[in-house]
């Protein structure tokens, strides 16, 4: 057992060494300019003084300040809302799909709006971080609270637990592992989005520093900063995982994202409103409040009522440049998604199928996934240019990880008895793969595809926002700079609709192809 663990570490170490080696060889041996790809040794020479002199302090302080404020806001708001929602099964069925739907919209799209409202300083980063962190926390907390094993509730009830005792001593501890997972996801997402926001438009912070170095072609130093940020991300992830492991004494409970919660449509009674109708009502109420608020108090330079957004949307539909931009983004997304799927499926199978590769490679995948990709965005632009290639590549870098992880997880959850019984009937490896492994994999593959799709969209948009002369991200930036909030809102609404539509499409095929998976 100990020897095996050592072997896993060896493989992981080997992977890192291999990456460094390939990097060093391509940097020195090929004709790639050292300006684009400095050799690791040069990066190391920049990295050491960076750590020693502590020049990173001002930027790190800004980023961490933004992160802690954003996370606190998100955690407090999400936990109080989910407490209220989870008290009624009806409210769960109204709000859970609503939150899940909004979560599928790449929130970074709102960033130009946030810059408009909050300026280029820390406030806009805090706002975007809090917005993005809110959803995984609220979704997991609701899902955790609503899925507490009914045996515990019944047992506590039989012993006379009061409502408060039920919540404090039964519901909360039972849901705790899932809530913790939500908090961890929230913290990581807040960190990533704050770094991304700093990269796109900011005065300070680590992301801003990296983007600045990229613009000055100071690549060795930029790489040193990237390594530093990766180190911070790794430490953050490690600290949170450690806290999580301590918090979850009883393992086995981990739900990454909810979204399956409303799939069990039970008996719908005539006495109360159908949850979907109530959900539309909630959306309608928000729109009405927005309309009224914008008309009475809003500055038309910054905020537009929904009615004007609708008009603008109709206007945009006739503009050739807008249609071309949407088409371009969709094309980039399709290509990025196709690549993500192929790579994700292959790597996922390699990682998941064997116990050895799983234990040695999975931690690497997790580490890469938690990497603040936004900070390497300048690198993508340096390597792939500012055309569609860098957007696609960046989209793939986002979309591939959820698919890898879902495939690996789906493969390893196969009950050994199924494989054993197939083998007893004389199935060979290929037959087992096709008839047992693949069908079993399908439900989680679809979940992975859904998550991968929104992630790929996020990557593409992020790249377009950062640097681009075309595409939707570019247009949103332009509308912001020229103070056309109605157009900006309209474009964001269209993209949100596309995101939600894709999400629903994946969900439909998910339930279509995995009916047996109750």
């Amino acid at each position: 057992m100990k020897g095996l663990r050592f072997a896993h570490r060896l493989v992981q170490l080997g992977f890192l060494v291999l990456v460094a080696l390939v990097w060093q060889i391509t940097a020195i041996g090929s004709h790639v300019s050292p300006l684009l790809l400095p050799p690791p040794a040069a990066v190391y020479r920049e990295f050491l003084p960076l750590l020693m002199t502590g020049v990173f302090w001002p930027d790190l302080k800004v980023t961490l300040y933004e992160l802690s404020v954003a996370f606190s806001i998100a955690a407090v708001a999400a936990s109080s809302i989910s407490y209220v929602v989870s008290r009624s099964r009806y409210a769960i069925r109204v709000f859970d799909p609503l939150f899940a739907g909004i979560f599928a919209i790449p929130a970074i799209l709102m960033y130009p709006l946030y810059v408009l409202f909050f300026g280029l300083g820390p406030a806009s980063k805090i706002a975007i971080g809090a917005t993005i962190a809110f959803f995984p926390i609220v979704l997991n907390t609701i899902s955790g609270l609503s899925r507490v094993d009914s045996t515990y509730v019944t047992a506590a009830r039989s012993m006379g637990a009061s409502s408060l005792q039920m919540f404090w001593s039964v519901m909360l501890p039972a849901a705790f592992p899932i809530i913790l997972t939500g908090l961890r996801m929230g913290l990581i997402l807040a960190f990533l989005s704050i770094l991304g926001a700093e990269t796109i438009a900011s005065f300070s912070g680590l992301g801003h520093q990296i983007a600045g170095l990229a613009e000055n072609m100071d690549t060795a130093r930029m790489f040193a900063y990237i390594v530093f940020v990766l180190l911070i991300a790794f430490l953050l992830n490690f600290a949170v995982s450690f806290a999580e492991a301590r918090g979850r004494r009883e393992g086995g409970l981990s739900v990454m994202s909810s979204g399956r919660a409303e799939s069990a449509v039970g008996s719908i009674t005539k006495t109360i409103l159908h949850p979907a109708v109530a959900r539309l009502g909630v959306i309608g109420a928000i729109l009405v409040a927005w309309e009224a608020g914008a008309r009475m108090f809003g500055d038309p330079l910054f905020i537009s009522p929904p009615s004007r957004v609708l008009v603008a949307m109709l206007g945009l539909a006739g503009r050739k440049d807008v249609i071309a931009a949407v088409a371009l983004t969709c094309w980039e997304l399709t290509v990025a998604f196709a690549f993500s799927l192929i790579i994700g499926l292959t790597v996922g199978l390699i990682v998941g199928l064997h116990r050895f590769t799983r234990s040695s490679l999975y931690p690497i995948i997790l580490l890469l996934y938690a990497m603040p990709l936004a900070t390497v965005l300048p690198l993508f632009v340096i390597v792939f240019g500012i055309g569609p290639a860098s957007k696609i590549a960046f989209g793939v870098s986002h979309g591939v990880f959820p698919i890898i992880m879902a495939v690996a997880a789906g493969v390893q959850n196969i009950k050994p008895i199924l494989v054993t019984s197939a083998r007893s009937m004389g199935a060979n490896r290929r037959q087992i793969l096709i008839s047992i492994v693949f069908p079993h994999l399908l439900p989680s593959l679809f979940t992975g595809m859904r998550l991968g799709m929104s992630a790929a969209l996020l990557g593409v948009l992020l790249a377009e926002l950062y640097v681009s002369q075309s595409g939707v991200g570019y247009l949103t930036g332009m509308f912001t700079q020229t103070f056309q909030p109605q157009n900006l809102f309209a474009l964001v609404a269209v993209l949100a609709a596309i995101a939600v539509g894709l999400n629903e499409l994946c969900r439909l095929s998910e339930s279509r192809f995995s009916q047996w998976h109750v």
Partner: protein
Amino acid sequence: MTEATPAIRVQGVTQAYGTPGDALRVVALESASLAVARGELVCLIGPSGCGKSTLLNLMGGLSRPASGEVWIDGEPVTGPLPQKVAYVFQENALFPWRTVLDNIKLGMAFQGVPQADREPRARESLQAVGLSDFADHYPGQLSGGMKQRAQLARALGLRTEILLMDEPFAALDEQTRMVLGEDLSVLLARTGKTIVFVTHSLVEAIFLADRVAVFSARPGRIKQIISVNEQHPRNRSFMASQKISQLRNELYELLHDEIRRTMDQPKLDPGSPSSSTFTVNEGGKT
């Protein structure tokens, strides 16, 4: 309330899921009547889905009947009765995030036992089931048999007169189950508790029960009640006796056709009434 008042009385109780007139309405239990005397152990046995657990939950006030009435100590039941009734469930109903000792103490906290009394009482009931050395273990660290003993300890710690046990040993292997049955019989003889015990095992029912209530297939009715005239505590020699195999054959004869009928029925909807009790107002439940 006199000695003659039965500890539990059930009169013409019917329980159904779904609204009346609905095609999907399932009648789980139909006009069941039963009286359980003080200090008596009654086993409920019958095919799956015949309403044994339903009846148990009605007795403990965890759900309300569609019609009919339930009395505990001569008082009509309207809700959970933590002061009088304690449960042992089939599944692992120990809270996995608390140690065995803390589980027992939490039950007492729910019931309203003063803080200072909880620890000594919890240790006492742990001793009664022979788990004193495992007080600080988490449920996940215990074997199946130990978990069920810990659950029993939690129920004993509540010091109720009545114990309702819903297939408590079903998930255990047969040997463990038999030994735990002997322990339960000893406990019964010592404490004189009133116990209603749901089981699928013919031998377990006869070995433990003063009377066995045999249920018919769904819609469940109490088909017959068989008396086992044997003093507690019972032991291995009773297990080996002619009487047990005779009664076992009699019981099997009664159940055989019911089980055949049940095998041809579709699977029951999993939405039992106890599963949706915390979140309020799902509606539609009678």
